[in-house]
Structures are given as C-alpha cells and as structure tokens.
C-alpha cells in the first residue's frame, strides 16, 4: 500500500500553502479535503447562475507576498485589486469616509473634528511602529521560552533584541497595545465617536469580544499588517473572489506534482505507538502517510480527529479551553443592480470600498451585549463590500455581488442549536439594516447565502464558525498559540503537525502558519528550505 510522504488534512489556504512548500521540497504530498471543492474559508462558489460569491473571507491584504512569490501565484492566476477606502454611514444621513489620499482623508475627518483630523498622523505613526515590531515575527516560528535549544534561545534573543530596540515609550505602548481594549486605545487619540467607531471595526472583527474588552487593540493591529503589492495596510479584492487565492495555490500545487482528493472527509488520524501513520476517511478508507499535517483548527484536530487517549492530559485540557468562540456570520447577496445609498454621492469611491453602519462605540458594544446574552445582534455590525464594482468576473454585467460580514452571531442561540428560523431572523437583521440606508434594497436581491456559525462550522469545519481558528488575544499568541509548549507546529503525537490559523501567527488569509509549519516539518526531515523566501526586510 502506498504511503505518502505527507498527508495534509484540509484544503484551506494554509493547508495548500503547506502542501505546496512540502511538495516543492521533493515530498510526495496528498491533500484530502472533505468538500467537493478546495479553499476552506477562502473560496468562491457559484450558488446561483452567473454569480460568484466570496463565501467566507472576502478581502485580501494579509497574504504574505513572500509566499505569493515562492509559489508563483501570479502565474497561476492570482491578482489582487486594491480598493479605495470605505465609509461608516451615520444615522443622521451623513457618512464618514476613509480615503487613500492622506490629505483628502484628513479633510474628511475634519468635517467631524478638526482636532481628530490632525490626530490621525500620530495614531498612524504609533500603529505603524507596532506593526513594524510584529511584522517580522509573522514568518518566524515562535520560540519556546522554556527550551534551552540554541535555536529557541536565538529566537528569544531576537524577540528580546527587537523589544529592547524600542524606546521606553514604545515598550510601554507595545505592552498596552497587546492588552488594552480598542476603545481605550482610540480614546488616547480621538474624541469623536464616529471616528472611533470607524477605527474600532478592525479591533473586533472575528473576535468574540466587544470594543471595550481588553485585548481588542491587538486585533486591530493584526488587520493593519497586510499590504497589497507593497502598499502597506491596503486591502484589496482577489479577482474572481477569495477562491482565486486557493485556486492559484491548488494549481501551483498540482503543477509541482501534488495530489488533491476532494470529497474525502477525514474521520480520524491513524495513530500507532504515539505516531501518526495516516488518516481514515469517513467511508473507512485508510490512507497511509509518513506524516500528517492538519489544516483544521486545534479543537477539531485534537478533539475530533485524534483519540483522547493519545494525548497528554494537560495538552487536552488546554485544547478544550482554547478560545475559539463563534462570533460572526456572513450574508452573501446577489443583486440585480447596484444598490443606491442616498447619503453617498453617486461618484463616491466608497461604493468600491468597505461600508459600515455602526457609527458609535456604544452601538458596537451593545451588539456585543446581545452576543453575551446568546442572541445574534439586533443591530449588528456589518463589514459590507461590493467587489463587483472593481471585479467584473463575479457577476453578470450590471449585476452585483455583495458580501456582508456580520457580527455578532453566537455559536448557540440561547444555549440551543441554530434553527432555520433563527438563520432567517439573523439574515433579516442584516437586510433590515442595509435597507434603512439603501431604499429599495430588498427589491434588488436575486439570491442570498446566509451563513451563521452553524453553517460555517458544518461546511468549512471551523469550530463554532470562528474565522481565525481561535481568538487573537495575547494569551493565545506567539508561543502560547495554540497552547504553551506546542507553538512550533508539532503536537504530542509524533509525525502529526498543525498548519492552520490556530497556530502562530494566527488567522486571516495570510498563509504564514502554513508556510512556517512546512519549514518546521522540513527541518525535522533534514530537508532544505532554500525554496522558501525569508520574510522581507522591514527597514
């Protein structure tokens, strides 16, 4: 019976990145994916004729350019289109826009507060400084602080040196940044509610925390670390939807000789004498591999795919306690025409960017209150984009695809499972909010895909539908991600590795966990990693 050099469980972007690097190192790699398509949470599917949805993730910025280069993704069709800014609509019929041009951005803010308009520079400087500290860590394996191995000591020293390189003021800011709430952080710079709400959005996305919860400032940073072709902090649409990312990865993988099996759900990992030997599919088929890499989140991997008896108690308890709470949903909408927002000038670039309706910190926090009470938010926070304003490939001419990321949606409704009626009620809260700002919106709807945490978990496999495979709070970052002692992509089971967003440096369509994991695997196999570009210099 054939034994693959490596079997990757799950064809999400990190699984595919991992598989690509392993295959290119000369390994014979098989990716097994339970769905009939690859992509995980970076996928584009045609659910109604003529319309492609970015079903889960919907914008691109974090994907590491080094990986795009190594895996030749442009050659395999990946193109990311930068978009211009966005806006928060205010309840009095106005909006606050974000523009790419620095001076236009300032003048826009000055419509609300001249002071805050001028405070933006200091805010941008401080956030940039923090990003520059974190960014080089993304593409490095986090050190094990308890290890005395030269490599761990070296990495710790690197971390320490970077930290020591900060001024006293920056060090204080770094520690505050990693621990404080986005609300408190923004209070240090801005006084206008809508301006704070505008920035706070990035601090709560994908996180089961409110803007006033400690730890949310870092989540904001996580969203600022990306770039589109060198334009740092910029966001863009993948042409053809986010599925274009994984489509290019799959093509790259196959071109280098890799094999993908779709419609192949893994029931469990074969473990013998503490070592992974392969996987068993849901139908009972056994596939053997010299090592197994799981792209699934840490809970799914170790609580569903591996028998508990194979795992140490403390590890198991920590995995069980890993915070991966469902907090968001997604509504994808096919529209027969471009919705109008009377508050927006018709030629506004905001139509091509991200739109929001939560114009105050309190509204945002109240949306979170609903989540805590076990309900979806009556007045949800939406991150809404219409990628077809820049990408003509996703809908028939003149028609549009609208993506609405929705927060908050609890993993269970009042302690019980989601029902179809709940799902419809959740969708209605979204449509009602949009319709309030866009008259006639309902009449434009051709088709909708509504995804609560129930649907996301069932289809994509993300536990509780958590988009980051675990919250990005400081207790779950760096050498504590996913659990202390296992932050280097290895697990208590020999030959079983992790490569999903549950691992360092975390979620978002970044590819870094998949890449870093491949580097560790190749190190264990004493294989060259010369085909892996090191992180670009931050100078």
């Amino acid at each position, binding site marked *: 019976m054939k034994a693959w050099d490596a079997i990757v469980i799950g064809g999400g972007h990190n699984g595919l990145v991992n598989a690509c690097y392993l295959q290119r190192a000369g390994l014979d790699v098989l990716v097994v994916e339970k769905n009939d398509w690859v992509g995980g949470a970076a996928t584009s599917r045609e659910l109604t004729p003529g319309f492609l949805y970015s079903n889960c993730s919907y914008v691109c910025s974090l994907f590491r350019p080094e990986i795009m280069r190594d895996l030749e993704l442009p050659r395999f069709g990946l193109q990311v289109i930068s978009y211009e800014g966005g806006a928060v609509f205010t309840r009095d019929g106005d909006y606050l826009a974000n523009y790419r041009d620095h001076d*236009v951005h300032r003048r826009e803010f000055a419509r609300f507060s001249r002071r805050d308009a001028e405070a933006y520079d200091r805010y941008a400087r401080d956030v940039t400084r923090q990003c*520059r500290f974190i960014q080089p860590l993304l593409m490095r394996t986090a050190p094990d602080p308890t290890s005395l191995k030269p490599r761990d000591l070296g990495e710790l020293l690197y971390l320490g040196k970077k930290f020591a390189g900060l001024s006293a003021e920056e060090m204080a800011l770094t520690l505050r940044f990693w621990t404080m709430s986005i609300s408190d952080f923004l209070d240090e710079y801005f006084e206008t509610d809508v301006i704070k709400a505008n920035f706070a959005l990035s601090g709560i996305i994908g996180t089961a925390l409110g803007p006033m919860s400690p730890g949310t400032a870092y989540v904001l940073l996580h969203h600022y670390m990306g770039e589109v072709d060198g334009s740092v902090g910029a966001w863009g649409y993948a042409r053809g939807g986010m599925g274009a990312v994984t489509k290019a990865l799959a093509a790259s993988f196959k071109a280098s000789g890799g094999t993908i099996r779709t419609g192949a759900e893994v029931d469990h990992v074969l473990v013998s004498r503490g070592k992974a030997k392969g996987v068993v599919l849901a139908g009972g088929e056994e596939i053997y591999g010299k090592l197994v890499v799981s792209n699934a989140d840490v809970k799914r991997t170790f609580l569903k795919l591996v028998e508990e008896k194979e795992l140490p108690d403390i590890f198991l308890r920590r995995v069980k306690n890993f915070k991966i709470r469902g907090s968001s949903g997604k509504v994808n909408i096919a529209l027969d025409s471009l919705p109008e927002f009377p508050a927006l000038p018709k030629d506004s670039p905001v139509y091509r960017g991200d739109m929001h309706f939560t114009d105050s910190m309190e509204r945002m926090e109240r949306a979170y209150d609903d989540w805590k009470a076990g309900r979806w938010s009556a007045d949800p926070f939406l991150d809404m984009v219409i990628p077809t304003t820049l990408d003509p490939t996703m809908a028939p001419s003149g028609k549009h695809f609208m993506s609405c990321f929705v927060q908050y949606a609890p993993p269970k409704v009042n302690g019980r499972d989601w029902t179809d009626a709940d799902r419809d009620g959740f969708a209605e809260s979204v449509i009602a909010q949009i319709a309030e700002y866009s*008259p006639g919106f309902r009449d434009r709807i051709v088709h909708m895909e509504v995804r609560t945490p129930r649907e996301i978990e069932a289809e994509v496999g993300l536990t509780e539908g958590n988009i980051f495979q675990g919250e990005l709070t400081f207790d779950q970052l760096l050498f504590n991600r996913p659990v202390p002692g296992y932050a280097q992509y290895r697990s208590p089971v020999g030959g079983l590795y992790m490569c999903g967003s549950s691992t360092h440096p975390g979620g978002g369509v970044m590819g870094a966990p998949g890449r870093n994991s491949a580097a560790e695997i190749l190190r264990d196999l004493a294989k060259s990693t010369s085909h892996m570009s090191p992180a670009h210099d931050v100078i």
Partner: protein
Amino acid sequence: MAQATRKRPVAKTEDAAVSARIDAQSHFRTLRLGTPFQPRLDALAKTQDWYNWAGYRAPHSLWDEELEYFAIRSQAALFDISPMTKYRIEGPDAEAFLDRVTLRDVTRLRPGRVHYTAWCDDEGFVLDDGTLFRLSPTRFRLCSQERHLPWLLDSAIGFDVTVDEETEAVAGLALQGPTSFAVLRDAGFAGVEKLKVFDLMDFPHDDATVTISRTGFTGDLGYELFVSADKALSLWDRLMTAGELRGIRAIGYTALNRARLEAGLIVANADFTTAEHAIRADRLRRPDEIGLGFMIDPQKAHFNGRRAIFEARAKRKLRHVLVGLEIEGNIPAEHAIVYHKKSQEVGLVSAAMWSPMAKRNIAIASLVRPYGDTVVEDLWVEIYAMRELQYQKLMKRAKVVARPFIKLDRRTANPPADF
C-alpha cells in the same frame, strides 16, 4: 450641483444644512485644493509643474526655476504661502500658553513682533519649527509645516486660551527680494518703511486689513503678507501692478528652496524628521541636534520637553549635530553620505546646491557626534552624480562652515533700500 437635488430619505434636516453638508462632502473630488491665489497662479503656470503641499496644489516652478531664483535675488519674487499651517491662538493666557509650548521666551516677544521658534514633545524631540506672530497682547498666529491641533489643544488644558486652525481662512504671500520694499511702498502701504526685521503691522486693504511682517525664508530683504482668503486676489493684483516696473515675478518652491538653503534655513521633514512622523525611534531629534539649541533659554520657566532637553545636554546624550558644509568643486552633493577620512560614514547631506550668491558649493548635513561637533577635520562627501546613465563618483572635501552661507546687508538695512 447635481448632488443637491438628490433625495435624502434618511436625513430629515433642513435643506440648507443638507446642501452645506453635500458641499463639504464633495472635497473628495479635488485631491489637491487650490489656494485663494489659484486663479492667478494657474494663469502664470507655464510649466504646469505642481507638487502637493499639505493637500494644496503648489507650483514647483511657474516658468523657469533658474530665472525664478534670480527674481528673488535681484528683483521681487511673489510666493504663495497659503498652504502653510496657521493657528490662531487667543486669550488672556495666550502668552503663558505659548511660552509653555514653544522653546523661545514668548514673554519677550512684544506685540507687533515675530520670532522663529520650535516646539518639542515631552521627551524634548522636535515636533516642528515655525514662526510665531504676536498680533496683539493676547492674540498670536503660529505658522508651521506640519499640523499640531491635538498637541496644541492638549497643551492648552489649564490655560484660558482658544486655539483655532485658520489655514484655509487666511491667505499668505511672501514678497522677497531687493525691490520688495519699493513694491510695497509703491502699492500704497504707507508706513511700511518703518518695519524692521521681524516687525509686523496692519495695513488697510480693500475694506479689510492685511498684516505685513518683515520676515521671510530667503535671507533677503522681504516681507510676508497675510489677508483673509476673500481679499487674496485683490492683494495679489495690487502687488503685481505696483511691482511691474520693479521686476516682480511669481515663483515656485524650487527657487525658494535654493534661497532658503543659501540663507542656511532648515525645512522640517527635509532636513530633520518631525517627532510625530518619525516611525523609527532613532530619527527623533532634539533642538541641539538640528541647530536650534540657540532657542533654548535656561532662564525661561517650564516649557514642553525642558527636563529632557537639559538632561540630554548634561548627560551628553545628544547624538547628532546639524552643520553647514562647504564642499570643494561645483557638483551639488544632494543626499550624499559624509565620511571621516574618506572611510568612516558619519552623516548625510540633506540639502545641497551650487550657490550663485556665495559662489560656493554648499550643503546642510546631519552628522553623528563628535563629527561636526568637536571633530571637524578630514570630512568628505561622496557624490554620486548621474551623468548619462552613469554615476560619476566623486570624493570631495567638506569643510564645516557657519550658517547662513550668505549674509545680505539689505536684509536688515533700515530704512530698507529703494532698489
């Protein structure tokens, strides 16, 4: 405007308020604003060579940057300074407030006077430099390169003072050059001859008031004029008409930048990085590191950054020094690396030119102490001169010299000369 007729179902505000809001929103269509003088500049802009000055469309040159420079030095040059950031600071505590915020002693700045100053954050790092105009005992105008409203407002806590940004409301012109006084006199600004360097006075203009100060950024005889934006064009026309026979010419920034370098003046975010924009911690500079140490008065009461500045002096924590260089030859050393003994890298040139007035190759450079401070011998600059797609690499001797590089008697002569 088309947008004014749009239905606004969400808003139920008054039509006037809505249309004002729509006007305010529409700024996104104009990435670079025109200044109040834009119609005049547009008419003269033969080169169409614009750059972005703080969100405004400003000319690099209008017709010929070489000749524009000579307009400063031999005629009268008119330069639009409206994009400069301007704050109106007013109130019973305005003097005390500014004394606390800025480096120089504001209690010694009399009404009707201007001084060049700078201000620092609490760590003593320079936020910006600029000019402070004392318009009355309780009213000031602070002009700067960067924007500082949050800093000024936060610093104003506890003072009976108001701080308002008035960049758009106030238009500004620099009239510089040997015939500038004669132009103003001929334009009918009676009494302008009484202005000594750094004096300011109000003059009637077009049923309003223009504030004229004998200040400038050229090291030459010159004046700056501030007027409300709606009187900008009539002021421009008044000067151009009066100056016709005195060779008055509108100029762009390239010419002004040459004049300021000859005058040895520094530009924020060109010769040093301002603290609120410095991403890299080692780019921050204290006043003593950029040649502004002269502004610091040990006798003066507390001011922002005072403790850190004196501590840095006492503990010799000042790492950099900004110097004027005179470089052999005539090839400008723009952004050249400075070496000690041709081998050790000790600094960087931030601005350089062949000076037509000094007939010397001059530069402003930031060096790492002790170079430029106690060690001033054996300094060299490596010039990479691109000539037809090849670098001509030159290693030229550099001598630390005092700034300004040129000193013109006419700048300070009283009464100003009638050229």
